């Protein structure tokens, strides 16, 4: 109960609605708490992993492209050191909000670590990947965070992204791994940038098939 009160969740009057409805509201409230990051209100790591596992299944089944982005605030420790942890929290909240403005309703945005966020973007074509990541990066860069009256901070993010492999049976940890590798690359290449893994070229184009089954060539060989 204390947990629910702390999270500012209103419970219906137990006498008015009856035990069953009240208990359901308590359970809903607890579920909500367990899937949210208390500071930013975004999905937490657990919720993110669930969404990712679901997406792995969907991609294997439907073959739709899906993108995961790992987003890390650049030099966040310096913000904390220079302006204090309260300012750091304000930055986290503001960036969370900026990121939230970039996503579609079906996307999952989560805070997965101290200054690390992640996005799962179902049904995102490979040709859009970099544009999506860049939009996120620019949105954060443009966001002014008021940490004290009259003092504004600007932060940047590095972004690493990877598409789910189009072939069956991948795994969520491997997918995150691949996105993380791109995040390291973005950091190493100077931060405030987005790096995406080149999508697997596993599709065989019509031209390739044409040549592979070109009847004229077959006859030539015989």
């Amino acid at each position, binding site marked *: 109960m204390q947990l629910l009160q702390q999270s500012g969740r209103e419970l219906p009057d137990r006498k008015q609605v009856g035990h069953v409805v009240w208990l359901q509201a308590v359970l809903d409230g607890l579920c909500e708490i367990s899937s949210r990051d208390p500071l930013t209100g975004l999905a937490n790591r657990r919720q993110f992993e669930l969404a990712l596992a679901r997406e792995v299944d969907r991609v294997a089944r439907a073959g739709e492209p899906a993108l995961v982005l790992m987003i890390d605030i650049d030099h966040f420790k310096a913000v904390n050191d220079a302006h204090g942890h309260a300012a750091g929290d304000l930055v986290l909240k503001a960036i969370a909000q900026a990121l939230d403005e970039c996503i579609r309703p079906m996307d999952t945005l989560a805070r997965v670590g101290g200054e690390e966020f992640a996005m799962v973007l179902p049904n995102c074509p490979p040709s859009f990947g970099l544009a999506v990541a860049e939009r996120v990066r620019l949105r954060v860069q443009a966001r002014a965070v008021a940490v004290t009256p009259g003092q504004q901070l600007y932060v940047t993010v590095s972004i690493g992204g990877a598409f789910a492999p189009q072939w*069956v*049976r*991948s*795994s*969520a940890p491997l997918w995150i791994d691949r996105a993380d590798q791109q995040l390291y690359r973005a950091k190493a290449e100077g931060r405030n940038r987005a790096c995406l893994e080149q999508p697997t070229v596993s599709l065989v*184009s019509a031209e*390739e098939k044409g*040549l592979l089954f070109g009847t004229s060539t077959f006859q030539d060989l015989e």
Partner: protein
Amino acid sequence: MSSTFPSAPSGPAAVSRARVLAVTSGKGGVGKTFLTANLAAGLAARGKRVLVLDADLGLANLDVALNLFPKITLHDVFTGKVGLEEAILPAPGGFSVLLAGSGLVEYSRLTAEVREQLLRIIDTLGPRYDHILLDTGAGISDVVLYAVSLADDVLVLATPEPTSMTDAYATIKVLATQQNRREIRLVVNQVGRIGEGRVIRTQLQLVVDRFVAPTLPDTGAAPTLELIGEVPLDPAVREAVQKRKLLLELLPGSAAARAVEAIAGRLAS
């Protein structure tokens, strides 16, 4: 990785290591497990020490093909329940197997650990065998690609069926572009007539030269497909598979068995 294990004494007397060959196909159901098991038997018959590692962790079926019902599988090794030695089983045909056991779907989630484990197994067992064959899963999943990346050589198996050829081509493309493979061995299974394998190789090579080679960083070195054999469509194979016997033992004189023998001979030399 390898530095964490006792290394072989250096110098001219250094222990020779097994040649690791991954057998893969893209499409399932083209005879990967059949070929792997019979190649292993063919190599063993030539006096080679052979280990087959069932790297199809999600949907392993080598145990079914060999009619083995192991109590101990790779799963027990991965979870530390038994030592590696206990999981190595003798198979009919005179080779050894490390079986994954069917339906260990959870490995699609444990992959980061599993790849360490696979690497460790190959590192540890390498000096004791002449050949290690990896029977990979169908498709081009991350697990399959990782298993292939552990191998010295890769053998792509295809049949003349258009879907199989397309998947074989897709596999070759991924291996060339993502793993920088420049030499890929090809076996064509279920050919209807002699020479069909050669035609298919030429056709695949043509498409590789045209579409894959130009996308590679150094366009000078195009990946080459080496046809190391074709296996005829032969009712003997069906019979052996249904009886869960090795073709080389059940019907050694059959056309398919002689073809597999020839491939084993080429791999042995």
